């Protein structure tokens, strides 16, 4: 029983971080109908950025999260404004297939460039927080994962309130519901898209720094997390921030309970089974009230 309770603690903490990675993907999909295949590669780029901020510039890993968020915000804004938007407008009212192909290519390019510049080996940043734990009775709570969970939770909730309560957020929601009518209502679609992509990557920048505090950096790191992000987005409902949070935590718990009950390989299999079942029986996600 103890092992299972410990697994739930580990799963919830890890799930929070998964959620913060997935929420950017969900936002881009919800607002722009863009499946950003470069999401994992951009996470990897953010992790290298934070890793070097921490190891070379000696910046605290949590301060690096703010810098990474700002840098990734700018990258997202420019990427959308100068490259993606061009493709979206050409696609007119259809689903942006070219954008999907473009982000897939972009992801490969980023991964290849990282291999050339940083090599194929993994690197672990040793921060003052790495390896520290908090004891709660017999339970062990990883300090880095707890901090990561709290920051991820705050960032995700902040994004949720931004979308719900601000004028820009309302415009984001309106565009996600119907981009044609939103445009007719005077919303600057191009600007909204840029903001959505910038926010999507800014929160990814935060997640990448959080990961650096406990996870090794390598050029292939994005693959693992982007796969999980897709599961979370499907689970939580495409475009739903709170759904993402719930989905992330659920994935974390399933992974850890599955790992304790069987082993890690079977736990991954359980996740993919869940992914298939949700797509088959509740494709709009767990929190969605839509009729299937």
């Amino acid at each position: 029983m103890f092992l299972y309770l410990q697994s739930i603690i580990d799963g919830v903490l890890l799930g929070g971080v998964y959620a913060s990675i997935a929420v950017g993907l969900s936002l881009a999909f919800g607002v722009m109908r863009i499946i950003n295949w470069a999401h994992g590669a951009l996470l990897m780029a953010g992790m290298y950025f934070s890793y070097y901020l921490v190891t070379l510039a000696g910046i605290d890993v949590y301060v690096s999260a703010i810098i990474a968020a700002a840098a990734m915000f700018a990258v997202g804004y420019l990427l959308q404004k100068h490259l993606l938007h061009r493709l979206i407008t050409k696609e007119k009212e259809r689903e942006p297939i070219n954008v999907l192909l473009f982000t897939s290519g972009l992801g490969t390019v980023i991964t290849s460039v990282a291999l050339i510049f940083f090599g194929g080996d993994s690197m672990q940043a040793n921060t003052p927080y790495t390896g520290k734990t908090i004891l709660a009775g017999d339970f062990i709570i990883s300090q880095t994962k707890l901090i990561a969970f709290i920051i991820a939770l705050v960032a995700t909730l902040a994004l949720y309130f931004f979308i719900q309560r601000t004028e820009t957020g309302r415009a984001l929601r309106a565009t996600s519901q119907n981009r044609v009518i939103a445009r007719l209502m005077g919303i600057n679609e191009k600007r909204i898209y840029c903001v959505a992509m910038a926010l999507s990557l800014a929160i990814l920048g935060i997640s990448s720094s959080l990961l650096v505090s406990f996870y090794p950096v390598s050029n292939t790191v994005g693959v693992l997390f982007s796969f999980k992000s897709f599961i979370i987005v499907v689970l939580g409902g495409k475009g739903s921030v709170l759904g993402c949070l719930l989905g992330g935590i659920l994935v974390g718990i399933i992974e850890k309970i599955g790992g304790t009950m069987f082993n890690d390989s079977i736990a991954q299999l359980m996740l993919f089974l869940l992914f298939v079942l949700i797509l088959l029986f509740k494709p709009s996600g767990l929190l969605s009230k839509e009729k299937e």
Partner: protein
Amino acid sequence: MKKVLSIILVLVLFICVFASCVPVENANSSPSSSTAPETSPAASVENKNGSSSGSSDTVKIGIMLPYTGSSAKTGELMQTAIDLYLEKYQSNGIDSLGGAKIVLVKADTTGSPEVAITEMERLIAENPDMVGIVGPYQSGVAASTVPIAEKNSVPYVITGATSDYVMDDDNIKYTFRPTLTNSVIAIDVVKFIANLRTLAGTDFAKIGFVCEATDWGASVRNGIGKAVEAAGMTVVVDETFDTGASDFSSSINKLKSTGCDVVVTAQYLADSLLFTSQMQEYNCDVPILAHGGGYLVSDYVTSLGNKAEYVMTTSGFGPDLVDQISDTSKQLRAEYIQRFGEDMTEYTAFGWTSIAVMCDAIERAGSQDREAVREALAATNITDTNHPALALMGYKGIKFESGDSVFGLSNQNIYATSVMLQIQDGKYKYITGAADDSIIKFPFPKWSER
């Protein structure tokens, strides 16, 4: 302004695409590559599509290694060792062929079995005068290319692939493995655990496995698992995971709760870093006995620092063992460290030994005929420790046998053994058979006491 920015962005993307096409061996900026000679003076190197017709004053050897992909660093270390051997011992060419110079024809396996098959077929088709092939790295790649070498009757000396199944075929005639196989490691691991039991003075009988889920992990789990069970020990934790795991807490909690005495791991670098970090995080004091992999990559120690201390690992090679082989070996290692700015690794020794065995066979064959080279390889019997082929491995000799003496495998070196290493003060120390704590640190301090 917008247009200019767009053009710049597109240009950057183009540069990135072109950059990704640059071969890693030239683009990589790791310490060893920056100081490594571009080509060995002893051997001229042809391009992938090189079309020089072989003549009697040259001897063509194919080299198949991962020059790009996630194992590029390993391929680079092996190639550096091959170049170094040729520079040191073959600068005058093959004596029995009138000093014919060795020419290397390279093919990039990229670490993928599918790519390796195509590349080997291309290498053989384009180079009818090639006497043999040296390579590859990774058991999966070796297993997929051995049938191609056999079908085309090309002598093939395996560089770095330890799984038994690579040589587990009675029809193998042209392929030879001078280095160790996993069954040897399994036997050595059981002996070593018995040694740990004596040192610990306790009943040391609960073994755990945390192995990745491909062929390598399965062969480690099956090979060592059977050997420890036959020796009366119990496997209490048997965990598999997909390479690139995001978390090991479930496995570590199981190791703790079962009172496991030692955990055997088969993990690549990223997983070994995470696993060791989390062992410390969760205060899990179960000693790690790694089956090489990520634990032997120098980045493991540099990334983890103190956390890597006391970790034990099997290896085909011990850096400080080299100094004990002969004065020449000791000098060679010192020169290597000075020249490349880092110590030799198992991969250096793998590359060195395989090319040395191939060159030795060509020398004895006195012919460029593949059949003659195959016969010379089959007749290999090196026992003089001053022979260059034994300069780095510390084996008693190199002699290929098939059948029961080598676990039912074919053309396997009967003398190939494994060694045990322990990380002490950031260095890999040779601890095989160590009986006191002047050599092996065991039992070692708990995480809470470090």
